[in-house]
C-alpha cells in the first residue's frame, strides 16, 4: 500500500513538472515578440539606433491609429485582402483538381509533369509584365499573379499526396466497388489531404509575398503600395505600419489555415 502511494506520488510530481515546463514554453512563445519590441523601443528612444529609420514601436502604433482613423488605410487593406483571397482561391482550386487527376492517372501525370517542372522555377513576379499584357492592369491581373504563385506548391503537393496514399486503400476501394467519382471523393481527396494542406500552407505564405511585391511594382492601392509610397515620401513610421499589417495578416492566415487543417483532417 505504501509502495503504491509512493508510486502515485512520483507520477504526480512528474506530471506537475511537465505541466510547469509546458507553461514555461507558452510564456516564452508569447513573451519573445514583446521582448523584441521592448528592446526596439529602448534602442530607438535612446537613439542607439537611428529613430528616423527605426521609429519606436509606440510611434508606429500611434501612426497606425491615426492612419486607421482617416479610413484610407482600411481601403488599402480591403483591396489587398480581396486580391489575396480571390487570387488564392483562383490558384488553389485548379491546383487541387489538376493535382488529384495527375495523382490518379499516370498518363496525365506524365504529360503535365514536365510542363509544371519547366514553369515552376520562373518567379511569378518575372511573369508580371506578361500577365499585365494579357489581363490588363485591373484587379484581375493581380489575382492572376497570386494564383500563379500559389498554383505550383499546391499542385505538386497534391500529386505527392495522392501518390503517398497506401496502395492497399486503392485495392480496398476497388474491391468494394468504388466508381471513379467515389474513388476521387472518398479515397484520393481525403487521402491526399494531409500533404496537400502542407502545400496550401506554403501557397498562403507565397501569396502574401507575391501580392506585396506586385503592389509595390504595379499598383496604386493595397498594403504593398502603402509601404512603397511612404518609403518614397520618407514617411518611415507610415511605412512600418504597412509592414506590421503584413506580419499581422500573415500570422492570422496561417492560424486560420491551421484551424481548417484540423477540421479537414480529424483522423490524423
Amino acid at each position: 500500500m505504501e509502495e503504491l502511494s509512493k508510486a502515485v506520488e512520483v507520477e504526480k510530481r512528474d506530471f506537475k513538472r511537465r505541466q510547469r515546463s509546458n507553461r514555461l514554453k507558452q510564456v516564452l512563445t508569447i513573451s519573445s515578440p514583446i521582448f523584441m519590441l521592448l528592446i526596439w523601443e529602448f534602442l530607438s528612444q535612446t537613439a542607439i539606433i537611428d529613430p528616423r529609420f527605426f521609429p519606436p514601436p509606440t510611434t508606429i502604433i500611434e501612426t497606425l491609429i491615426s492612419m486607421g482613423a482617416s479610413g484610407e488605410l482600411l481601403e488599402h487593406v480591403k483591396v489587398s485582402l480581396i486580391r489575396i483571397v480571390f487570387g488564392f482561391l483562383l490558384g488553389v482550386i485548379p491546383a487541387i483538381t489538376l493535382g488529384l487527376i495527375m495523382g490518379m492517372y499516370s498518363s496525365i501525370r506524365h504529360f503535365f509533369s514536365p510542363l509544371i517542372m519547366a514553369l515552376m522555377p520562373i518567379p511569378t513576379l518575372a511573369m508580371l509584365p506578361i500577365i499585365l499584357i494579357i489581363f490588363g492592369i485591373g484587379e484581375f491581373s493581380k489575382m492572376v499573379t497570386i494564383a500563379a504563385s500559389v498554383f505550383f506548391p499546391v499542385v505538386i503537393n497534391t500529386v505527392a499526396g495522392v501518390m503517398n496514399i497506401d496502395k492497399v486503400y486503392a485495392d480496398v476501394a476497388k474491391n468494394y466497388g468504388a466508381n471513379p467519382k467515389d474513388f476521387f471523393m472518398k479515397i484520393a481527396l481525403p487521402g491526399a489531404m494531409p500533404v496537400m494542406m502542407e502545400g496550401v500552407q506554403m501557397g498562403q505564405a507565397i501569396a502574401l509575398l507575391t501580392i506585396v511585391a506586385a503592389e509595390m511594382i504595379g499598383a496604386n492601392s493595397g498594403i504593398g503600395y502603402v509601404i512603397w509610397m511612404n518609403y518614397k515620401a520618407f514617411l518611415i513610421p507610415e511605412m512600418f505600419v504597412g509592414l506590421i499589417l503584413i506580419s499581422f495578416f500573415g500570422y492570422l492566415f496561417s492560424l486560420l489555415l491551421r484551424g481548417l487543417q484540423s477540421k479537414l483532417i480529424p483522423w490524423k
Partner: protein
Amino acid sequence: MSEKIKVDQLTKVFFKHKEQVMALKDINFSIEDGEFICILGPSGCGKTTLLRILAGLETPSSGHYDIQAKGQERPLQSMVFQEQGVIPWMTVEENVSLGLRMRHAPRKIIKERTSMYLKKVGLTPYKDLFPKELSGGMKQRVSIARAFANDPEILLMDEPFAALDEQNKFILQEELLSIWEETKKTVIFITHSIDEAILLSDRIFLMTSQPGTIKEEVKIDLPRPRQMKKVRSDPKSADVFLKIWNHLQTEVQESRIKHER
C-alpha cells in the same frame, strides 16, 4: 449442395525486371456453397496472389475461375486484407458501411446492416472513432464487419489474424466462426497457422511454393460449432496437425534446398 467456386488451371507469372516468378501453377479446385476453406502454405507460396485473382485485383496469366452468383444485387466477393485495410480517414461506421455505400444501397439498408454488424463484432460504442484510436484487434473486427456487411457471394480473407497477439486471435477466431455459422457464407481463408486452419475449416488446401501449387487437400470433419478448447483436446485434430506439420516441414526444406542451389 451446389458448386460455388470453380478454379481451373489457374497460373500466374510475375515479371520483375528480367526475372520471372511463377507465383501460381495449374491451380485447380472446386468449393461448395457454404464451405469454409483454409489455404495453408509457407510464406511466398502465392496465397495472396491466388486470393487477389479471385478478388479481381489481379488477372490470371492463364486459366479460369468462376464464382456462382445467386442474386443479382449482391457483389461477388469481399476481401479482408492481410495488411491494415481499414481506411484511416473513415470512422469505424463509415468503414463498415463502405461496400454498401459504394454500391449506393438504399440508406435504410445501409443503416440496418451496418449497425447489425457493428453490434456483432462489439464495436457499436466505438462507431464514431477513427481507426488511429483502435487497437489491432479492433481494426481487424472492422475489416471483418465490413466484409460481412457487404453481403457478398463469397468472402476472401488474407491472414486476417496474423498480426494479432494470441489472446486476441483466439477471441476473433471464435467470433468469426459464430458470425459465419449464422450467415453460412462461402469463405476462403488464408493462413500459415495450422491450428487456425484446423479450428476454422471444412477443408484445408495445402500449398507448395515456387511454383505455387495445391499439393494436397485435408478434410476436417470435427463437429460444429467448434471451440478452440474442444478442438485442441480432440485426438483426431492432433493427428491432422501432425500430418500437416510433416507436409509443411518437407515443403520448407525442399524450398530451402531449391533456393540454395
